[in-house]
C-alpha cells in the first residue's frame, strides 16, 4: 500500500520537476513557430540588413543590425559602469565593512534588486535624463548613456551578490597565510582573495550582463528609441527588447513585421542563454575546486 502511494507521489514530483524542461521547449517551439515563416516569405538574409524600417509605403526593411548594435552599445556601457560598483561593493561588503554596515548594506542591495524596472525607468525619465541633458549639453536626455546608467543600477545587485559569494568561498587559510607573511589587508584582498575569487566574479559580471541585455522597460522609457546604426552613447538608440515592447502592440498578427519581432526575440533569447550557460559553468567549476 505504502509503496503504491510512494510511487504515485514520485511520479507526480517527477512530472512537476519536468515542467521546467517542457516550458523551455515550448518557449523555443512557439518563438520558432511564429518566426520561421519569415524565412520563406521574406528571406533569412534580410534580417541582417542595416536598416529597421518596419512600417513604410515604399519598402519595409527588417534588418536587425541596428537593434543588435543598440543592445550591444547599451550593454557595453552598462557593463563598464557596473563592474567597478559591483566588484568594489562586493569587496567592501565581504572584506572591509563592519558587521553593522553589512547588516544594513545587504538588505539595502536586496531592496534595490526588488525595485521594479518600470519605476527605475520612470526615475530615469524624470530625474536622470534632465541631468544628462544639461551635463553634456545635448538636445535630449533620452540617450543610450541614460539607459546604460539605469541598467547598471539594476544589474549591480546581481554582480554584488554573486561576487560576494565567490569572495566568501575563498578558503580562510589563504587570508591567514597572506596576513601571516606580513601582507597588509589591501595586499591580501587584491593579490590573494580577488585573484582566487576571479572566476566567480567574472561569472557575476556575465550574469549581470544577461540581465542588462534582457531588460525592457527602463530602456524603452529612456533611450529615445531611434533605430539607427550608431556607436555613440550620446545618441538615441533602440534596443532589441524595446523594439518588441513598443511595436508588438500595433502589429497585425502573422504579418512580416510580426514575424520579424519574433526573430528579435529568438536572437535575444540566444544571447542571454549563451551568457547564462557559460556563467553557470564557470560558477560550478569554481565551486568544485
Amino acid at each position, binding site marked *: 500500500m505504502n509503496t503504491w502511494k510512494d510511487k504515485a507521489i514520485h511520479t507526480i*514530483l517527477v512530472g512537476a520537476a519536468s515542467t521546467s524542461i517542457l516550458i523551455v521547449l515550448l518557449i523555443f517551439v512557439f518563438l520558432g513557430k511564429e518566426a520561421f515563416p519569415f524565412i520563406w516569405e521574406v528571406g533569412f538574409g534580410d534580417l541582417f540588413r542595416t536598416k529597421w524600417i518596419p512600417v513604410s509605403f515604399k519598402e519595409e526593411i527588417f534588418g536587425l543590425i541596428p537593434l543588435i548594435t543598440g543592445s550591444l552599445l547599451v550593454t557595453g556601457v552598462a557593463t563598464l559602469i557596473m563592474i567597478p560598483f559591483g566588484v568594489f561593493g562586493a569587496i*567592501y*561588503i565581504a572584506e572591509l565593512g563592519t558587521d553593522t554596515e553589512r547588516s544594513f548594506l545587504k538588505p539595502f542591495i536586496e531592496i534595490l534588486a526588488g525595485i*521594479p524596472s*518600470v519605476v527605475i525607468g520612470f526615475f530615469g525619465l524624470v*530625474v536622470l535624463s534632465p541631468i544628462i541633458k544639461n551635463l553634456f549639453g545635448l538636445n535630449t536626455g533620452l540617450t543610450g548613456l541614460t539607459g546604460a546608467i539605469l541598467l547598471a543600477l539594476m544589474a549591480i545587485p546581481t554582480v554584488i551578490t554573486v561576487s560576494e559569494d565567490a569572495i566568501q568561498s575563498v578558503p580562510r587559510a589563504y587570508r591567514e597565510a597572506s596576513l601571516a607573511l606580513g601582507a597588509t589587508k589591501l595586499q591580501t584582498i587584491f593579490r590573494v582573495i580577488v585573484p582566487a575569487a576571479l572566476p566567480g566574479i567574472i561569472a557575476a559580471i556575465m550574469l549581470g550582463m544577461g540581465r542588462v541585455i*534582457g531588460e525592457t522597460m527602463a530602456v524603452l522609457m529612456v533611450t529615445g528609441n531611434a533605430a539607427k546604426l550608431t556607436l555613440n552613447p550620446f545618441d538615441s538608440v533602440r534596443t532589441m527588447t524595446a523594439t518588441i*515592447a513598443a511595436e508588438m502592440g500595433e502589429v497585425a498578427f502573422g504579418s512580416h513585421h510580426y514575424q520579424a519581432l519574433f526573430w528579435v526575440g529568438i536572437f535575444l533569447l540566444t544571447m542571454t*542563454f549563451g551568457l547564462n550557460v557559460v556563467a553557470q559553468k564557470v560558477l560550478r567549476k569554481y565551486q568544485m575546486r
Partner: protein
Amino acid sequence: MKFLNKESLIINSVRLVTYFIVVVVGYLLFDIIVKGVPTISWSFLTDLPRKSGAEGGIYPAIIGTIYLVFGAIVVALPLGMASAIYLSEYAMRGRLNQGIRLAIITLAGVPSIVFGLFGLGLFVLFFGFGASILAGSLTLSFMILPTIIVSSEEALQAVPMGLREASLALGATKWQTVYKSVLPFALPGMFTGSILGIGRAAGETAPILLTVAAFFLPRLPSSIFDQVMALPYHLYVLATQHPDTEKVLPMQYGTALVLIVIVVFFNLTAIVLRNHFRKKIQW
C-alpha cells in the same frame, strides 16, 4: 606611515564607491516618496481613473495587479515546491536531473519580454485565451518559477541529513520521511522564496504588456478572460504615452509610490522572515 596612508586612501575610496550606490538608491526612494505622498489619498486608491488617467484614482490597476499576482502564485507555488522536493530529495544524478537543472537556469535567464512573446504565442493566440488575466497570470507564473524552485531547494538542503536518516532508519517510507521530517523544517524557507517571487511578479511590466494589460479600462474585470489594468503598466502609460505627461506627473509619482510600497513590502517581509528563521533554527 606613508604606506599606511595609501592603504587607508584606497580603503576609503572602495567605501565611497559602495556608499555611492546607497546614496543613488536612497535618493530614488526619497524622490518618489516625497513627491508621491501628496498624491496618495483614499480616493486615489479607491476611485476609477478618469480622462485617461489624468484624474481619479488607480483602483482598477491595484485590483488588476492583485489578480495577476494571485493567479501566478496559485500556479507557480505548488509546481515550484514539488519541483524543489523532487530535486532535493528524490533526484539521482543523471540525465533527467541535469536536464531539469539546465532548464531552470535557462528559465531564470529568459528576458521578461521574451516571456511576453511566448505568452502571446501560446496562451493568447494558440490556446485562444485572448489578452486576459488567465494568459497574463500563466506567463508570470512561468517567469517566477525558477525563483521559487531555487529558494525552496535551498531551504530543503539546509535540513540536516540526520533527520532523514533517523526517519528512514525507523522504517518510514521516503514520502513519510519527506512529509513528516523534512518539510516542516523547510516550509518557512520555501515560503520566503515565494514571497520574493510575488514581489517580482507584482513589478514586472514586459510580460503583461503583450498578454493582458489594458491601456485604459476604468472598470473591474468580470472574469479571468477579461483584460485588466496593472500598476506597472499604468505607470508606463502615464509616464510615456499620455498626451500631457507633465500635467499628470503627480499621478505618475503616486502610482510609482504605491507600486514601490507593494514590492518593497513583500521583499522586506521575505528578508525579515528569512533572518528570523535563520536565527531560530540552529542545527
